[in-house]
């Protein structure tokens, strides 16, 4: 069916000259290059390339997870940090106000303190009669009874 004599198209009547060529003296050094390659194979880039190729999807996934984590955790950290700073600011304010009152107390001079202690001003405690106090302590009344007693 496919006999050659039946196939003689025009292009086959043309010259079959090889249109390709090689670099000058290419074949002269070919034997040495091949033997060199056999004796000292080019350092295999296969091992590292293979490892990288195998790890590529894993590294890509890890990078994506890290990115997502950073994107999510950063705003959270930002808010948390902001809250912490605010509360720290409150504490600092409180501490500094305590510090201020300490300073204001220490700024009172000694004479003022002595005068305050030795003044004749009657304290509320000094107005309580010792007998009333004793009666109160021995009465065993509860808070409701004390309240109704006062009201009466």
């Amino acid at each position, binding site marked *: *069916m*496919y006999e050659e004599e039946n*196939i003689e*198209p*025009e*292009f*086959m009547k*043309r010259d*079959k*000259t*090889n*249109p*390709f*060529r*090689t*670099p000058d003296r*290419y*074949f002269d050094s*070919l*034997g040495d*290059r*091949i*033997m060199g*390659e*056999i004796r000292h194979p080019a350092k295999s880039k296969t091992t590292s390339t293979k490892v990288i190729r195998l790890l590529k999807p894993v590294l890509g996934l890890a990078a994506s997870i890290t990115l997502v984590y950073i994107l999510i955790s950063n705003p959270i950290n930002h808010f948390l940090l902001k809250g912490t700073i605010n509360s720290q600011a409150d504490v600092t304010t409180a501490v500094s106000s305590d510090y201020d009152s300490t300073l204001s107390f220490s700024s009172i001079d000694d004479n003022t303190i002595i005068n305050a202690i030795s003044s004749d001003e009657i304290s509320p405690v000094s107005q309580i009669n010792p007998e009333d106090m004793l009666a109160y302590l021995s009465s065993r009344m509860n808070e409701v009874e004390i309240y109704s007693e006062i009201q009466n």
Partner: protein
Amino acid sequence: MTNDQQILDSLKDPSTKELAFRHLISTYKERLYWHIRKIVMNHDDTDDVLQNSFIKIWNGIDSFRGESSLFTWLYRIATNESITFLNQRKRKMMSSLTDENEYLIENLESDTYFDGDEWQMLLQKAIAILPEKQRLVFNMKYFDEIKYEEMSEILGTSVGALKASYHHAVKKVEEYVKSHETRIDP
């Protein structure tokens, strides 16, 4: 004793193996080069494939049982290496949406070691767009004038199937050349 048989005997002796292999390279380098070059088209790719083929031959020479001629065995290895090379390229090109034929034509057009005229370029392009098997058969029959029986051993295909492939290849090349030839200035 044939020259091939002498090479094979020397290759089996460790003391003469390297010298014999150099002799084998010297004997077959040009024929294998041109066989590979017609398949992958570009010189640089051919150089890579040829070196890989000889390394495969060196590594596999101890397993060569002489069931086919040395020439057939070497051609088979070179052909397989060429096809493997093109398949690897094909896999890489899947992302760039180009196919093997386009790759071959690009290879051909960018090859600085192509000295042919416009008509020869047209013929090579017509060959480049053939399916792989038809391209192999066409090159081996038309340019290298390898007999179908030998081709059958190299490619592992029946003589009838090879004849059919060649017939279809010739028809396609003829059609391509006819449809594009008018564009070439005389």
